[in-house]
Structures are given as C-alpha cells and as structure tokens.
C-alpha cells in the first residue's frame, strides 16, 4: 500500500495561518499530508528547523509567509526568502532532493492559492517517491 507523504508547513500567523483558517471555513479540500505549524512570522524559521524536520521523518517542508512587503514584522519574510535560498542550496549538500523544500507567499484572503501550493507540494513529493522507488528497482 502506498503511504501518503508527510509535509510540515510552517505558516506565519498573520497571512498564511489566516489563509489556512479561511480555507477551512470555506471548506476547501487539501491533502491530509499537510501538518501546519503556526509561527508568528516566516522569518522565525531557522534553517536548522527545516533540516530537523527532514531528519525526524518529514518528507517535505514548506515555509509559508506574507507577500513581500506585507510582513507584519516588516522584514521577516525578506529574511525568510534569503534563508530559503541557502536551504535550497544546502539540501543537496546534506543528501536531500531540492524538491523537498518550498517557500510560498500568500495573503490572508487567498486560501485558494495556499491550497493549490499544498496540493502542488503533495504531488511533487509523490512523484519524487515514485522516481526514487523506480530508481531502487532499476538498480536491483
């Protein structure tokens, strides 16, 4: 039986989490693989946390924050974006595929956009797992 991927989504309180809340109220469906962790701002997520999540068994990690220029702590999401760069670059150094990490921006009134990002991430990881298994079988 195929196992669903497990995705940790760090959502900032002011836009991303509010959008997730609205998605729930509007009864939008998104994959059950998403586990939301609310943080005050996307700029709070240290790259160590992303790698920690992967090491502890998550298949993918998302950081979701406000649109550029709309962070409630002014520069938090700029810092998050710079960090997203180094996370993407060091993933392969640490033996993970780049597809396992995603940074996304949404506003609190864009639940569809958030749900779409969740779905895309879920599909990407499923594809990644299929490739990995195909690769393992081909090697055997």
């Amino acid at each position, binding site marked *: 039986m195929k196992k669903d991927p497990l995705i940790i989504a760090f959502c900032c309180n002011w836009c991303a989490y509010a959008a997730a809340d609205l998605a729930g109220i509007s009864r939008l469906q998104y994959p059950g693989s998403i586990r939301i962790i609310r943080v005050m701002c996307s700029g709070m997520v*240290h*790259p*160590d946390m992303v*790698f920690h999540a992967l090491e502890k068994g998550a298949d993918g990690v998302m950081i979701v924050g406000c649109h550029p220029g709309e962070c409630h702590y002014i520069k938090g999401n*700029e*810092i998050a974006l*710079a*960090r997203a*760069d*180094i996370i993407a*670059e*060091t993933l*392969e*150094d*640490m*033996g993970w595929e780049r597809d396992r990490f995603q940074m996304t921006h949404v506003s609190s009134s864009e639940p569809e956009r958030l749900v779409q990002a969740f779905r895309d991430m879920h599909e990407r990881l499923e594809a990644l797992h299929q490739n990995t298994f195909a690769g393992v079988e081909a090697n055997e």
Partner: protein
Amino acid sequence: MKDKRRPRLSFVWLHACSGCEIALLNSGERLPELLNKVEIVHFPLLVDHKFGGEQEFALPEADIGFVSGGVASEEHLALLYSMRRTCRILVSLGTCATHGGVPALRNRWTAAATLETVFGDTSGRATVAAEMPALLDRVYSVDEKVRVDFCLPGCPPHPEMIVHVIETLMTDGQPRLPGKSVCETCPTIRTGEMHRTVRRFLNNAEYDSDEPVEEMRCLLEQGFLCMGPVTAGGCGGLSVPLCVQARVPCRGCYGPVRPEGNQLLDMLNVLASHGVDHRAIVDRQSLLRFSGAHGLLRLTRKTK
C-alpha cells in the same frame, strides 16, 4: 587520605595530531599539582607502554579515559572499543574526537579516492604499504562509535579547561563548558551594519595596531568570514578569542555552539539573515572544516 587510591587516567590518540595532549602539558603550574593527584596508566605521548596485541589492544583499566582524534581506520576502531571497555568514564578530547576535526575533510570523497589522491604514484595507483590498517568508509567522531560520557571540543581545548574537566570528573562532578559562542567573549566593536559582500582574507582587516583589539571593528562586520557566531567559545579562556587576538577571523575550530549544530548551515544563515550575499562563498563545504563527522560532510556527487 594516604590509603585512598589515586584516580587512574588513560589517554589514547586515534586520527589525531597530539596537539590535544600537548595542550594538557601546557597547563603550567596546574600540571604538577594534577600529576600529584592522579596515576597515569597509559599515555603514548609521555610513557612508553606497549599495548599492541595479536587481535586486541590490551589497555589497562582506568577510571577516566581520554580519546583524541576521529575514528578513521579499523585499528582506531579496535583501540576505541578497548578504551571503552577499560575506562569507567570516557571523554572525547578535542574537536577531532567530538566532531571529526580536520581529518574528517576526507568525508567528501571515498576512502579509495583519498588513498589515490594522497598516496598515489604517477599512474594514480595508491602506493601505501600493504600492512597499513584498512581505512573506514569515512571519518567518524568518537560518539558515533561508542557511548561517550563527556565531550570536550577545541582544537586543542584550552589547557585550563582540560584540567578543569579532569579535576571535576575525579570528584564525580559534572564539568560545565561555557555553552556560548566565540562572539560572546569577543570585545570588538559591533554596530549592526554589515559589509554586504564577503571578503576573503587576502587583505588584512582594518585596524590600528597601536590600539587594543577593543578598538577594532568586528571582523564579520568588515566582511570577513569570521565564524565566531557559529563556533563554541572558550578558546581564549577568560580573555579575547585567540584568532581575534591575532586580528584574524575565527576559523571555527571549537565546532558548533550546540553540539549537534551544523556550522555550514548556521554560518550561511548568519549571512543570509543579514542580507550578505552568500553566493560568493564557492567553497561553502569548507565551513565544515572542523565538524564534518556525523554525516555532515558527504560524498560530493559525481559532476559528470
């Protein structure tokens, strides 16, 4: 107190340079005091004591054992297992033992590639003598292979700190490390304004050599890749960090601030969070030059 047996100390070195042991000998007046209180049962740097066996190493029983160096070969591994069996308390001494240290730089290549590069003849074949112990696939820190009771990083650890750890463990206490970064004991001037690009250390930092180091601007803020923020402090004892005393940037030799931290990731994070362009660091893997064990430095993927 005459009848009380002196605590027995045992020292072995694995993939090490002897600097850690020399640091202990460098502890000045505290050394003779210490030597009067302990019995040294095994210490290759000081005492000629034969311990090789046919299969196993016959090490003497000890109360506290110190291992310096990483675990790089089958021989190191056998020696380490023997040490663990014979010592009640085991301490990993120095960054090589706690985080792999400089020898773990080879973890980016296979053992075969290392042999070919380092000992290769003109045709690229390794030329080491056949009786050299087989290399492990990579260099491991001591705690990756056996249970360790206390980790004392530093390349080498500060002499006072080594003596403090020995004396505390002798009385069954729990030694304490500073637990802070190099920056916390650095007196340079910080303004919060960073140079936006990384400058490599081809030019000297800006400072007035007639002025004390307290008058110098933080080297990281000057744009040099000073690893102070991501490196465990203590190298200067109660005084200024050693490299900063010499007005050069910290290279990271005490390993990460949290024992399980990742100096590469943490340093890039420092730069990214301050808007510094980290792409100028083409050799970013070298930020793990002292802490490549624990699987942090890995085989570089084939580029072809």
